[in-house]
């Protein structure tokens, strides 16, 4: 089967491509590029991408799909549906399920469920320690054979530096990156929001920025000691980003990601005690938001990841300090990046593709993804940078609705998602706005 993505604008930082071309796909792989004027190859379906940006499939390297164990919040199938609706062709599932993904049987289960769902590619991340308890190493080798692409005790970061050192040394043997949620629990314990002006006003215990920064610093020192590849998850503070900046200057194998809510909202959003603003790391103050923006601009930050964390409405309908941490993000991530970053002139479209596709593929060593070179997997994210749309949480593909972005209006978003050469998602407004795009382009 052949599919021609016609008249689009190709952005592929892996090859330095930034030009108007047609893209030909055959049997789930990229064949190559051709000029807009070229004739139609034979026996070929056509997708009209006039006025649209065609990028290698976006990879969200940090999501919680809740299966096995918490299927009332999300399943791998519902999470994969939310992923493609949000423009993601690939997601990486964190191991904090029940049971924890700390051995190969769970890894294989996740992969099988994803194959059954048949939408997005799902790569499991294994636990660093058994049951993420921080005391004994998990079977990383077995899990790698079964399909994990990284290890992490996300949410329950390894408290002991000695244990973390062993984990990094051991993971290096399997060339697995170690992903860490940076949080010194002795500083953050009991906190439910960022420690600062608003935590004082609202009378809630705060988590100081230093809790994240101490752990980020510890992990970078251990990366230097062990030579292991280290990836710091959802950084939210000025100091933590600075730690990564210095580690990179030293040439350490350190990368990091940020989440859209951390550049969009500040801790002021907590003032109505809406539990959909309760997330860890917490929404920070403006100076931290500014540091994230700076890191996105200057290249310190490698990836955008949603930290999609579904929770049932009943769980979030508790008092603020009782409700669980986490918000869903798969369907608003690209919208927030386009609206708040690209269309505000903070970063270029090319840099966006780097953050959402090229770099995550590089960090995770997903060799034939994150690129549109000939022979690569035909995973595509197709973006309309002018599309205006509104996110309606009640129509989300996710099983959960815990988002602070319900009813947000966006300019720019994903309009089509192609996985393995198959169009798995088309925005409901795609046909409606196609005419306008043609008029605009001609």
């Amino acid at each position: 089967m052949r599919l021609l993505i016609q008249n689009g604008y190709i952005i592929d930082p892996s090859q330095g491509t930034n030009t108007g071309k047609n893209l030909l796909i055959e049997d789930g792989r990229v064949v190559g590029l051709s000029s807009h004027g070229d004739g139609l190859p034979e026996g070929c379906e056509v997708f009209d991408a006039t006025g649209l940006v065609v990028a290698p499939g976006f990879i969200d390297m940090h999501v919680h799909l809740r299966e096995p164990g918490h299927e009332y919040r999300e399943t791998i199938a519902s999470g994969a549906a939310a992923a493609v609706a949000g423009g993601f062709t690939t997601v990486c599932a964190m191991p904090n399920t029940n049971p924890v993904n700390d051995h190969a049987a769970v890894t294989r289960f996740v992969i099988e469920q994803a194959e059954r769902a048949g939408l997005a590619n799902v790569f499991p991340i294994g636990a660093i320690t058994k049951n993420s308890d921080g005391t004994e190493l998990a079977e990383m080798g077995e899990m790698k054979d079964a399909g994990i692409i990284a290890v992490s005790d996300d949410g329950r970061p390894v408290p002991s530096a000695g244990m973390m050192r062993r984990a990094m040394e051991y993971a290096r043997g399997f060339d697995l990156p170690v992903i860490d949620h940076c949080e010194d629990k002795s500083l953050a314990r009991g906190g439910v929001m960022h420690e600062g002006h608003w935590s004082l006003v609202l009378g809630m215990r705060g988590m100081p920025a230093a809790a994240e920064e101490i752990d980020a610093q510890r992990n970078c020192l251990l990366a230097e000691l062990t030579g292991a590849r280290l990836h710091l998850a959802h950084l939210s503070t000025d100091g933590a980003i600075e730690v990564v900046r210095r580690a990179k200057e030293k040439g350490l194998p350190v990368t990091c990601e940020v989440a859209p809510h951390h550049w969009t909202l500040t801790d002021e959003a907590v003032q109505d005690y809406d539990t959909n603003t309760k997330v860890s790391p917490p929404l920070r103050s403006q100076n931290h938001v500014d540091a994230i923006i700076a890191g996105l601009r200057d290249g310190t930050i490698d990836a955008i990841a949603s930290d999609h964390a579904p929770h049932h409405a009943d769980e979030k309908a508790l008092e603020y300090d009782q409700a669980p941490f986490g918000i869903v993000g798969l369907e608003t991530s690209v919208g927030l990046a386009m609206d708040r970053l690209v269309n505000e002139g903070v970063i270029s479209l090319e840099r966006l593709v780097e953050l959402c596709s090229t770099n995550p593929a590089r960090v995770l060593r997903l060799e034939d993804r994150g690129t549109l070179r000939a022979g690569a997997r035909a995973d595509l994210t197709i973006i309309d940078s002018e599309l205006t749309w509104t996110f309606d949480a009640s129509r989300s593909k996710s099983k959960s609705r815990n988002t602070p972005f319900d009813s947000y209006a966006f300019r720019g978003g994903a309009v089509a998602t192609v996985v393995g050469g198959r169009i798995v998602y088309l925005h409901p407004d795609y046909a409606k706005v196609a005419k306008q795009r043609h008029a605009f382009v001609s």
Partner: protein
Amino acid sequence: MDNGFKLKHLLGIRELSVDQITHLLDTADTFRDVSKREIKKVPALRGRTVINLFFEASTRTRTSFEIAAKRLSADAINISVATSSVSKGETLLDTARNLEAMAPDCIVIRHSSAGAPQHLARFCNAAIVNAGDGAHEHPTQALLDALTIREHKGHIAGLKVAIIGDILHSRVARSNIYLLSKLGATISVAGPGTLVPPEFAELIEQGVRVERDIQDSIADADVVMILRMQRERQTEAFFPSMREYAVHYGLHLSHLSQAASDAIVMHPGPMNRGIEISSEIADGGRSLILDQVTNGVAVRMAVLYLLAGAGKSENGAKRGQNGKNVVRGSSATAREGSVNKEKRERSKK
């Protein structure tokens, strides 16, 4: 009596205007007399139902609200719920919805979680009165403190108020800082470094003076407010021992020599005698601690009357806005936010 007092709930002092505060205090003044009569009852809330829903132990506040409701002829029901099994029992929301189904006019809530009253206000029709939520606010305490100060000093503007003790965990301190500064007082706070973060200096626009030595806070003060020190803060490593606290941060007679000659001393209760306040002061001529309790009834009568009675605003009878919550604090709309804030402030005037 209603002169444009628009308030459906009393959730905190921070969002109140000076006019609203003054109106509440003036109303409380008129109710003070009721408690001095032989027949301590007026029919203002006859046929209205007030539920006191207390999730934290309380003697003074709960009794005060109950007496206030009864002196207004309301039917008052007290519910005390142990919070030790929060995760096992019914959720707060379900409890509130069940009570709502019995059509109360007002629910007075005390809860250990900050924001619990806001949580209820979002989903309930009844007027919600915050009787203390976590470390957030305790609006009726601040109102009764202000009423007591006004009664003794004649005014609040221009007074110097020192608040001493565990400011970090104190809802009383927060509500008082907001209220007294709105009425023109200047505030200083002091206590152990662990319990008085320097960020309190910027809690309000006018600023708060943060002192390490309680003597520096008390110097020239017209009003000295002492906060209760809770023993569990010791196990949480906020201070080493009650003994050391009493020596360094307890109020002794010698401290008052530096204060204004007519300085008054207040404490929201319950007191730890010999820890945060010496008995000579607590029982001495400058102490207004029992006046505070007396004024508590008048203030709560005013609050219940204005929110649940004839004085309540038109909005009070209508269903609350249960719609989607607008998330504030969007960095990209910060400018918009300040415009809205201006609008809000204008609309208050």
